[in-house]
């Protein structure tokens, strides 16, 4: 792997790490398999890109993206809780609907961000070389958000969120409306995913309606890689594991793309296959480990 590829993987690991935290919140904490993310990632990208090209401050555009993501998550949660549609199906419906909405927002399938201000400009202006500025900036943002999520999960509301995913009957008997909590949790998760999407768009210089394809699998793969390598006991450990799972996942992808066996080499279109294998490996590894230790 080249130095350039390594830096690029770090950058992506942190940027997508925020999305992975969102996936962690729904899949692991709330026990709500949420496929909305495949639509809310490009939603965040679209909102941010359109806002920036219309002269909005790039940082403010991130907030707008998160807000839009929260709305998308709320729609899924409302379909599930109030209209009693199965969570998986509810999220697929929102995801499909977002495809049309994203094209409406961008007034086309994509928006270019070349030559406009992004959140990296202030850091670049400080004189830091570009190849360092991006990973540092994204690492700081991702770590800040991870700490915020760790704090939130320790609050009264956060604890109610964790209890809702663990034992809905128990937390209902303790006076909590689980519908409200699910709406809040899925909303928050998609706000993170959309925020991540906005950063991706600013990082790669464009927003594209198809950039969200496979988000959920990449997110899940990262969560599982993180859990397998760093453990999942305790809120802080689990959240940091999700973030660094994302970094390792992107590094693994970069590594795989750099492999050359004679005339054979992987192409980006092989990523889905690699990811699927990675998830299977990560899922099976603990079982094999347990069996070896039992001997």
């Amino acid at each position, binding site marked *: 792997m080249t130095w350039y590829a390594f830096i690029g993987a770090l950058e992506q690991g942190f940027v997508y790490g925020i999305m992975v935290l969102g996936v962690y919140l729904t899949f692991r904490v709330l026990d709500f398999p949420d496929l909305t993310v495949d639509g809310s990632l490009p939603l965040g990208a679209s909102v941010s890109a359109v806002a920036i090209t219309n002269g909005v401050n790039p940082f403010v555009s991130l907030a707008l993206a998160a807000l839009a993501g929260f709305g998308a998550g709320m729609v899924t949660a409302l379909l599930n809780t109030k209209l009693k549609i199965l969570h998986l199906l509810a999220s697929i419906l929102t995801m499909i609907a977002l495809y049309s909405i994203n094209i409406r927002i961008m007034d086309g399938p994509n928006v270019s961000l070349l030559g406009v201000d992004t959140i990296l400009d202030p850091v670049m202006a400080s004189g830091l070389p570009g190849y360092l500025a991006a990973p540092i900036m994204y690492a700081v943002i991702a770590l800040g958000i991870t700490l915020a999520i760790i704090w939130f999960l320790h*609050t*009264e509301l956060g604890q109610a969120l*964790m*209890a809702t995913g*663990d034992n809905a*009957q128990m937390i209902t008997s303790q*006076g909590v409306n689980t519908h409200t909590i699910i709406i809040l949790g899925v909303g928050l998760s998609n706000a993170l995913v959309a925020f991540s999407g906005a950063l991706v768009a600013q990082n790669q210089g464009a927003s594209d309606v198809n950039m969200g394809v496979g988000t959920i699998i990449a997110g899940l793969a990262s969560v599982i890689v993180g859990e397998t390598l760093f453990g999942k006991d305790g809120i802080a450990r689990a959240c940091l594991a999700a973030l660094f799972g994302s970094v390792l996942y992107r590094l693994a992808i970069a590594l795989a793309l750099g492999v050359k066996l004679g005339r054979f080499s992987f192409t980006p279109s092989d990523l889905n296959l690699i990811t699927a294998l990675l998830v299977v490996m990560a899922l099976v590894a603990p079982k094999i480990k347990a069996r070896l230790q039992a001997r």
Partner: protein
Amino acid sequence: MIELKAFTKYFHKGSVNEVLALEQVDFAIERGDFITIIGSNGAGKSTLLNCLAGTCNPDGGELLLDKKDIAHWPEYRRAKFISRVFQDPLLGTCGSLSIEQNMALALRRTRRRGLAIGVKAADRATFRQVLKKLGLGLENRLRDRVGLLSGGQRQALTMLMATLVRPEILLLDEHTAALDPKTARQILALTETIVGEQQLTTLMVTHNMNHALKYGNRLIMLHRGQIIFDIQGEEKTSLKKEDLIARFYDLKREELASDRMLLG
């Protein structure tokens, strides 16, 4: 304090499998009552408790709490004044959260939840003090995951959590049925202590006639969705197991007789 008026509940209403689970039940619970509820399977015991707690809504009648009709309030709203302990020891606690986190969740049963930290340092002393009374050593394991505890320990913790903030009404749905006899006795003793200390209005469903006779000041027997037996005070104290069994057999005979008439 709580009054059921012509309270009716069907299951599978309008289908061929329609079951009348509670039929025109009229029933008043006085403040401070400790009522034991017995009845054969399908008599409507659990349905009665579920309808009080709000897990199911009635098809007719009223449920009055201090003259207010709460028959259609959602469960989480009734939790402000009703606490429950389930038969399944796993239902009352969160296995993936620690003992102190579970107790902190219970401590806010009647209050709004915000962005204050969940387990406050000041509350830990309270938790330790309450847990110490159990004599299970849990006061030294505040940060252990509840999933590591045994069924009996979890049920004891659930009892504590249900009464950490004093409820107006405590509902116990065969809460010792899934435990071994020794643990069941301990949980019942704990129940008696807490109910006595806090002067709780309590409804306890049980399959055990001895328990039904030993505990509480009032006993009701349900049969096919109706209260067929309701005694309290002196009369209950002097009631013997044989009387209850005789009553049960009377019912069985009536059932057999009606079956025979149908078949004959």
